[in-house]
């Protein structure tokens, strides 16, 4: 029995490491049939929680270090070698901190809000393919599921803001909801392009559609097409807004409304919010990787020997680093500008992109000489022209000009 257990465990690990199909089967079969489904589910859930929770810890450290370096500081370097245990220290601090609930707060909702935020965020991971043969549920309507659970996080932010009975919290919650609703639309429309081209809502299938290489080295990722690139950028901007990251960190704008809906949270509840926010960011970047960057696929043919999930994580961390870089550079937008940007720029651009993707789809039947290049240039132009036009008129009636200054002697 024990021997079988270890054999099954070993086989599973071996299969995971070498990217083989159905790694769980041998291990699960060790157990009695009645508890096999539970074991199988646990085997899917536990690694997700472990991997992404440790990724969260790593990211907080990476973020502080990276921001430190951007700002010519050293960043945390006291706890452990190179400050590696800083997240542990932070976590301990959070756990041992007093949990303060405002006297007039709505206690129940104040308590529920972080949980209601965390659960859907974790649920979103159910449909992400982390590697070859590594998807918890290959759902037919995978993306729809992802967006459905993503949409329900808004309510929890409202709960947090409203239940705190703090004007700043309420302002923050209102801002958060306005922002998330506005950016959900470009987010969904830009992923619709991919769905359209792939012809499926299943994320596994979308990754499959991006297999193979042009000319033997350029992978068939969506990001290497004009609509894909534009869609990727729109998706990235919208996901920055969805995960409340700078320059869209308006709901938590420290300099304006203290910490928005987080103002009255402390201790473990605050840590839960923090965790959920980062997990949300990972999930949405994971979706971006899946939709546009070829999911777990290797960038070059000869790199395919590296396990697929490594590629997924690398791409994910790449996006996270980009987010950190942006955070270290840009100031924050204002609420009305943010909404203007969403409705007057992101939405038209994503609709145009949808149209261009359709054209891309229909021109795939072109087979004259230079058709590929022609198609590429046509689509690129169809995106670039509206981009420049929209960009120039974005400000509308407000006169934003390049100014020159007078000097008096």
């Amino acid at each position: 029995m024990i021997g079988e257990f270890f054999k099954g465990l070993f086989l599973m690990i071996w299969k995971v490491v070498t990217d083989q199909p159905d790694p769980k089967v041998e291990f699960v079969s060790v157990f009695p049939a009645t508890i096999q489904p539970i074991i199988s589910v646990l085997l899917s859930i536990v690694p997700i929680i472990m991997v992404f929770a440790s990724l969260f810890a790593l990211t907080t450290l990476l973020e502080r270090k990276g921001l430190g370096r951007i700002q010519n500081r050293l960043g945390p370097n006291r706890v452990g070698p190179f400050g590696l245990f800083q997240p542990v220290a932070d976590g301990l601090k959070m756990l041992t901190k007093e949990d303060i609930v405002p006297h007039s707060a709505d206690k129940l909702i104040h308590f529920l809000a972080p949980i209601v935020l965390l659960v859907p965020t974790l649920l979103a991971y159910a449909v992400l393919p982390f590697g070859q043969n590594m998807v918890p549920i290959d759902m037919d309507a995978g993306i729809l599921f992802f967006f459905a659970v993503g949409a329900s996080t808004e309510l929890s932010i409202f709960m947090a803001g409203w239940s705190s009975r703090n004007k700043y919290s309420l302002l923050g919650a209102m801002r958060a909801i306005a922002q998330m609703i506005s950016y959900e639309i470009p987010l969904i429309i830009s992923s619709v392009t991919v769905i359209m081209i792939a012809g499926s809502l299943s994320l596994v299938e979308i990754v499959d559609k991006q297999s193979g290489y042009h000319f033997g080295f350029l992978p068939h990722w969506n990001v290497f097409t004009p609509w894909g690139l534009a869609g990727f950028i729109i998706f990235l901007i919208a996901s920055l807004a969805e995960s409340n990251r700078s320059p869209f960190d308006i709901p938590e704008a420290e300099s304006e409304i203290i910490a928005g809906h987080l103002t009255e949270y402390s201790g473990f509840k605050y840590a839960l919010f923090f965790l959920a926010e980062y997990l949300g960011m990972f999930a949405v970047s994971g979706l971006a990787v899946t939709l546009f960057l070829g999911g777990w696929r290797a960038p070059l043919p000869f790199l395919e020997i590296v396990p697929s999930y490594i590629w997924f994580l690398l791409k994910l961390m790449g996006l996270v680093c980009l987010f950190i870089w942006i955070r270290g550079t840009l100031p924050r937008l204002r609420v009305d500008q943010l909404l203007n940007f969403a409705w007057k720029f992101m939405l038209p651009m994503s609709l145009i992109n949808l149209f261009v993707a359709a054209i891309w789809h229909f021109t795939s039947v072109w087979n004259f000489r230079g058709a590929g290049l022609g198609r590429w240039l046509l689509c690129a132009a169809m995106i670039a022209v509206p981009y420049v036009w929209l960009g120039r008129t974005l400000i509308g009636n407000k006169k934003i000009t390049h100014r020159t200054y007078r000097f008096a002697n």
Partner: protein
Amino acid sequence: MISDAPGQMGMTSESASQVPLPEGAGQSNYTVIPKTSAEGTSEGELLEVAMGPQHPSTHGVFRMDVVLDGEHVVKLKPVFGYLHRNHEQIAESTTYLGSMPYTDRLDYLCSMTNNWAYALSVEKLAGLQPPERAEYIRIITAELTRLVNHTCLVGFLLQDMGALGTPLMYAFRERELILDLFEALSGSRMMYNYMRFGGCRVDLSADWIEQAKQVVDGYSRFLDEFEKLLTENEILVSRTQGVGVLTVKLAINASITGPMLRASGVNYDIRKVDKYGIYDRFDFRIPLGDHGDVYDRYMIRVLEMRESVKILNQALRDIPAGPIMDPKAKIRGFRPKAGEAYGRIEGPKGELGFYLISDGSPNPYRYRVRPPSLINLTVLEDMCLGETVADVVIILGSVDIVLGEVDR
């Protein structure tokens, strides 16, 4: 409603009417005029928010009672005094020299110019004339202070705008270099207590001048870097242009001074108008804005820094040798003749003036600071009306206040 007693001293507001007056205090039968009630709070959609005194971007303990319609400001009342320590009363009960270190603490980012303004006023009162080398030293330190203040201000402004401290850290990186210079000169990094009536406390060495030249050279490179990071940034431009506009008429009528006034397009710089010190010997220009919005205030400061670098280059090149104290000046037993004087300089934040009345004793009879930070806040409400909460924060940032000076 928002609670109002800052309660930083003994008496609390609720018991104030019962508290007997201290002996000999003025027999006050004046009525305390009640605070104008915020009209419209009862209206359903208005939200009254107290921004401060523990708000991250009020630059200290400062409060604004803001009435919001959604995110738009319909009323804004600044509330001062949380840091009030009755600086003027302290100064009136100590010697002329004893107030010098207190002036450091007014606007703790620009102690050198505070020192200078006070020294200048006392020199006017007592008829002292600092020697030429001292004037040069004063101009060098004042312009370095202007660099420090303006860089930090831009950093704080961007911090208020949510740039997560990156510009602020760059500003502080350069500020460190100048603070090193000041420390080598005066012994302290912030509270210099450097100027004396009729000169300066210690002389600067040749090494110091070399070091200062290097710092000044590096500064224009840093300004290029800073501008690349910020000036064309679309977010910054769209956040600041057209926000917090201050009209020329209002700016003059409300006694606004400093970069804020010049951003509105008024050519008034006391360095040029009064030609105090030896500013008339230097070749520099006054940048002027046309719109009077936050962007102009930001740009005026950047351009002023470039002009300051120009002045510094000239001053460091031309500084003569010689004594640094007026031989008539005394450290101990300094008693100016009875009379009064008002002296002012162009501080980095605006006109910093000191009004002194002497009655012939070692302590000033009346000592008054004209704080640019406080008076520039007169128009805060006018600039903020109709703007959003986020704009209020950056408008306040662009006014450039230091609470040590506002509340004194």
